[in-house]
């Protein structure tokens, strides 16, 4: 696979804390790649290393089969987790300037900026200062800054943080459009449920180590776990002798993790004996359930991590 971007054996320490430990990452073209993991897993650190913002203690970043150079990196696009933009600069000026830093000439940069603002629904704010825009709009300008030079490689660190559902939908479309054109895309998220249906391939990191990687559908299919979803909130004593545990419960109902010997209909009957079930399904694990299994941690730990983000 010589056309992609990859990291090999990347390790990084900060003082005595090991933040990345021998991490490999592959980003092939044409697929949405997710770099996932809870807070503090090392996702941002890895992305910074990809872009040469940090020099790793060990490991290499390769592009098209050879070591990535500064010039290679300049052709990529990066939206960091900590959004950064000149607040007192006008939107269009800023995008044009960033395009020029990426090596475009002034006219081409300005034309790209105009096109992109049009696409992102910001055409009428082109002459405003970024500081005068709403948070969501500034977020779109940030995305525009990462894309204004039409990069082949787009790396988005926590792109969905702080977005409303409409904006999430919009950004998802931009991402899918980008990869459908045969380009590369890497995004990170600690909210596994949010990117469940967007990421096609994932690399899951935990405490700086890769704990799971591969095609999402294949990973789910390969998992021996099965879950029964019901639209009622199940109490533990309802299950009786059925070998199943309550994986999670929320306002929309419960998910029961079934032991490999358990028949799904037996579990469903046990629940139906106590409440009326109008909607149910037998499902493969979700991304967070896959993560919990490999990480061997309690559901609370992940939820706590998501809540503090």
């Amino acid at each position, binding site marked *: 696979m010589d056309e992609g971007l990859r990291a090999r054996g990347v390790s990084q320490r900060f003082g005595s804390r090991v933040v990345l430990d021998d991490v490999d990452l592959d980003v092939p073209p044409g697929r949405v790649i997710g770099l996932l993991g809870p807070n503090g897993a090392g996702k941002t650190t890895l992305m910074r290393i990809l872009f040469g913002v940090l020099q790793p203690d060990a490991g290499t970043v390769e592009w098209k089969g050879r070591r990535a150079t500064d010039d290679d990196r300049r052709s990529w696009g990066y939206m*960091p987790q900590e959004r950064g*933009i000149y607040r007192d600069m006008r939107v269009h000026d800023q995008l044009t300037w960033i395009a020029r830093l990426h090596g475009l000439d002034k006219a081409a940069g300005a034309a790209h900026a105009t096109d992109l603002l049009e696409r992102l629904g910001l055409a009428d704010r082109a002459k405003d200062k970024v500081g005068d825009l709403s948070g969501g709009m500034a977020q779109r300008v940030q995305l525009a800054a990462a894309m204004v030079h039409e990069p082949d490689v787009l790396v988005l660190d926590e792109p969905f943080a702080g977005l409303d559902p409409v904006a999430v939908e919009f950004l998802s479309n931009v991402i899918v459009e980008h990869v459908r054109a045969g380009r590369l895309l890497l995004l990170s998220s600690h909210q596994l449920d949010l990117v469940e249906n967007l990421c096609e391939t994932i690399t899951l990191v935990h405490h700086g180590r890769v704990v799971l990687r591969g095609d999402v559908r294949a990973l789910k299919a390969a998992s021996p776990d099965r879950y029964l979803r019901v639209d009622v909130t199940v109490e533990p004593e309802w299950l009786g002798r059925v070998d199943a545990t309550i994986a999670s419960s929320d306002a929309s109902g419960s998910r029961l993790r079934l032991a490999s010997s358990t028949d799904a209909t037996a579990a469903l009957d046990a629940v139906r004996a106590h409440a009326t079930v109008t909607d149910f399904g037998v499902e493969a694990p979700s991304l967070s359930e896959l993560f919990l299994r490999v990480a061997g941690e309690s559901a609370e730990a992940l939820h706590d991590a998501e809540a503090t983000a």
Partner: protein
Amino acid sequence: MNAFQATWLVAGRELRESFRRKTTWIIIAVLLVGSTAAVVIPDLVGKDGPTSYDVAVVGDATTFGPTLVAIGPAIGAEISITKIADAADARARVDHGDVAVAVLLGDDPTIIVRSGEHGQLVGAASQALATQALSQALASAGLSDAQIAKVFDIRPVRLEKVATETASRRGASFALSLVLYLLSLTVMIQVANGVATEKSNRISEVLLAVVRPGPLLFGKVVGVGLGGIAVLAAALTPPVVKLAVGGNLPQGLGGALAGSMIWFVLGLALFLTLAGSLGALVERQEEVSSVMAPLTTILVAAFIVAQSSADSSLGTVLAYVPLTSPLMVPTRVAIGVSSPLELVVSVVLLILAIGLVVRVGSRIYGRAVVRTGRRLKLRDVLASFDNRVA
């Protein structure tokens, strides 16, 4: 895109944005008006008439008085003579400033003047004394009054000064140093603030993914520095224009100006690069002035030494030290105590220092701007270099 183009793009943004701000134009306007006034007003006032001097004379002034009065126009002055009976009284009047100069005539003529003042008038008085002595000698040699008058009937020589007086050179260099010093200080804070803002707004990470730290830091230095020089140009245009059209500018300003520029520009590059690196260490904008304190202290100290004792041995040593030479050398040139060797060595050291500071500074900058969460110590950042090597 090479490092030079990147530097220029970063500098260009800095300049464009600064000239888009209203405050920049206000500062330029104020300086331009102030500096024009400073050049033009003394001229207008000065044109009211020649300077007038009171000269006290003790003794028989029948020849001396008229001779001195006649020399007056040659030094652009109107001289009036006051006869005083007694030498002690004359001395007291000079001391109080009632008269500019007192002249004691007699066998052993003496000119009394407050030290350092009225150089031209003293010259005129000596000339008048010489003339008087000569005419007495001619008279005792037997020439008639008419013949003597004929001897002296030559137009007084017009005095044209070429050599500059140390005092006025010092004055000019002080004014210039003050302007340069204040400007350096302002621009330095501006660079450190700019870097700190970029760090706290997290723009640095976006930029570092595209541009190496070196061009990013030096681009800012060049951009803000050129902005500062543009402001300086506004302040210096009126005196330079006047110099060019041949007005009588305070002597010494021209030379000091040209000489200072090399050290000023190089010194600015050095100070601004340091300021940018230090600015990268802060976590919040408010910490900028405290992190800059060592640098501003050096600048203030160098300025004070330059203005008070540039010709001392301390001044001589500091003229070679890269951080202090930008302030020391122009003053030493202005008062004429520097040697060509000193100039060459000091420029070379300064350029080497800039090279070193850009290298080390951009590494500090590159490391520090992505380390947020707390105020960094220079030691922490430097320690992470060793980490890399080990």
